[in-house]
């Protein structure tokens, strides 16, 4: 490392000015890109805190008084049951995914199954299945066994939807554990449960956290199954939002407030756990 730095130091001196300028340019580009990334979200939050008349003016008033009119209108339409449904479906399906995926990832990475690549093939091949193709079969089946408009149906579907990604990601994390550590544990006479708890769990806690976050975000954002398979009882937040936008579409502050509230859990999760997400996203696809 030091030799590389020294080698760079010589010619870099004359280029210092040029380097500094390109550094400023790159930082500027980074700022512009960041603003473009968040522009729709910022616009939505901004509009949601305007009064309905200010939100509707053209040209839009940038510095108009702060108002929570939109939020009181949205919360007046009783959005809590759908939000609770979304939380239930996302959290429980995430727990199920982890319970199923951990042993599977363990079997695939640390104690390799002979045909492990075939098994991984199978898990990954599920990515091709479009939800639209599963929709009717699931709908007709659920209708027959009287399981429509039931939050447990969504929990089962979200579990199977996210399971392949979770297995794939956790396997990547588990492959990081050196074999020697496991062998040492075996020499000490540690059983499967103890090995899992004392060696593997600490190493893959970050992996579990990022898999859980990603599963939570995907379940929370799911629309297609939820829209067709639920009614008034098991309706989720995104489905409620589509209904709210259809009926209140002309009131921009209201619908922006509604959109923001529905997005808040995933935006907060994404923002609060950046490192975990970056690690998880890259583990899932790179390895």
């Amino acid at each position, binding site marked *: 490392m030091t030799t590389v730095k020294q080698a760079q130091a010589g010619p870099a001196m004359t280029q210092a000015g040029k380097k500094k300028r390109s*550094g400023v340019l790159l930082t500027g580009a980074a700022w512009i890109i960041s603003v473009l990334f968040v522009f*729709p979200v910022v616009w939505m939050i901004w509009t949601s805190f305007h009064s309905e008349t200010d939100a*509707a003016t053209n040209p839009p008033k940038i510095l108009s008084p702060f108002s929570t009119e939109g939020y009181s209108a949205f919360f007046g339409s009783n959005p809590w049951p759908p939000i609770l449904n979304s939380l239930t479906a996302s959290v429980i399906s995430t727990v199920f995914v982890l319970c199923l995926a951990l042993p599977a990832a363990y079997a695939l990475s640390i104690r390799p199954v002979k045909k492990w690549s075939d098994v991984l093939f199978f898990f990954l091949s599920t990515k091709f*299945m479009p939800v639209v*193709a599963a929709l009717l079969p699931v709908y007709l089946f659920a209708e027959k066994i009287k399981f429509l408009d039931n939050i447990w149906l969504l929990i089962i579907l979200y579990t199977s939807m996210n399971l392949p990604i979770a297995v794939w990601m956790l396997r990547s994390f588990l492959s990081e554990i050196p074999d020697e550590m496991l062998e040492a544990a*075996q020499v000490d006479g540690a059983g499967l449960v103890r090995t899992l708890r004392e060696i593997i769990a600490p190493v893959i806690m970050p992996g579990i956290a990022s898999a859980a976050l990603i599963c939570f975000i995907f379940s929370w954002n799911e*629309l297609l199954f939820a829209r067709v398979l639920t009614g008034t009882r098991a309706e989720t937040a995104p489905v409620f939002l589509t209904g709210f936008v259809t009926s209140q579409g002309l009131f921009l502050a209201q619908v922006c407030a509604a959109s923001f509230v529905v997005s808040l859990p995933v935006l907060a999760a994404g923002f609060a756990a950046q490192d975990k997400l970056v690690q998880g996203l890259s583990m899932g696809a790179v390895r």
Partner: protein
Amino acid sequence: MRESKTRPWLLLAGPLLVIAGLLLYPIVRVTTLSFQRYNLREVISGSPVFIGWDNYKQVFTGAPGLPGSYLWRTILPNTVVFAALAVILTIVLGTLVALLLQSVGPRVRALVIGAALIAWALPAVTGTYVWVWIFDPDNGVALHFLQSIGILGQEGHNWFTDRYSFYAIALLNVVHHSYPFVAITIFAGLLTVPTELHEAAKIDGASAWRRFWSITVPLMRPVFAVVTILSTIWDFKVFAQIYLMPGGDGSNPEVFNLGVWSYVSSINQTKYGLGSAIAVLLTVVLLLITLVYLRLLFREEDTA
């Protein structure tokens, strides 16, 4: 290791069963449905009728009320050309942002990653609505902006009725939503490229452009393969981003893609058989893409 041979399979049994059940059953069922007449009348009577390839004939040569070339002139371009453009834009922008992430300081990097994750985590539903409001034909920010700089006159413009501008907005929405993932994945891949190679090439006088193509790209081939195929699958399956735009919910057949057409046929029009045939077509296309993906991915892993 002294391990029983069955234990790994026991550990795998749960997920394998769940996935097999929720993958194989729908595939078999949707394929059966695609050979049946299963419209409102059959839904009421409860007895669908086997009609052979008729639904597929309708898909390929025109369903009632739609022109014969509907699949070829409208649906396939909306699906395939859109996906191709979205994939290219996503990969190019994702790579540029990844390279940018690599060359800025840690604080600016954290800022860009934070912003990217916000764009990625935003639900497709919300994201789509926000773009629709921004491009609102009566009162949108985009309309006002274009009028104020004189590109658009007072008469305004409805971007959602015309297929091309509709898809331009959808493209903006989909790319904005998906390139953060690609950027982060490629950035993670870039970290695995040894810096010594770049330093050596720099001393030899290779330009940044040259170094990117002869060092970064070959080493990153597997990563690029994965993000390309994953993006292709996502962009073929795009649903909410089209369905929630004005006209995408069923009123304007000009803007449907395969997924939306299938949904509208089955759910809005209660033509379960026709909708299933379209869904089977989409599944077959995606299956072919996935096979390519798996081959690329595992060939790389075997040689590594």
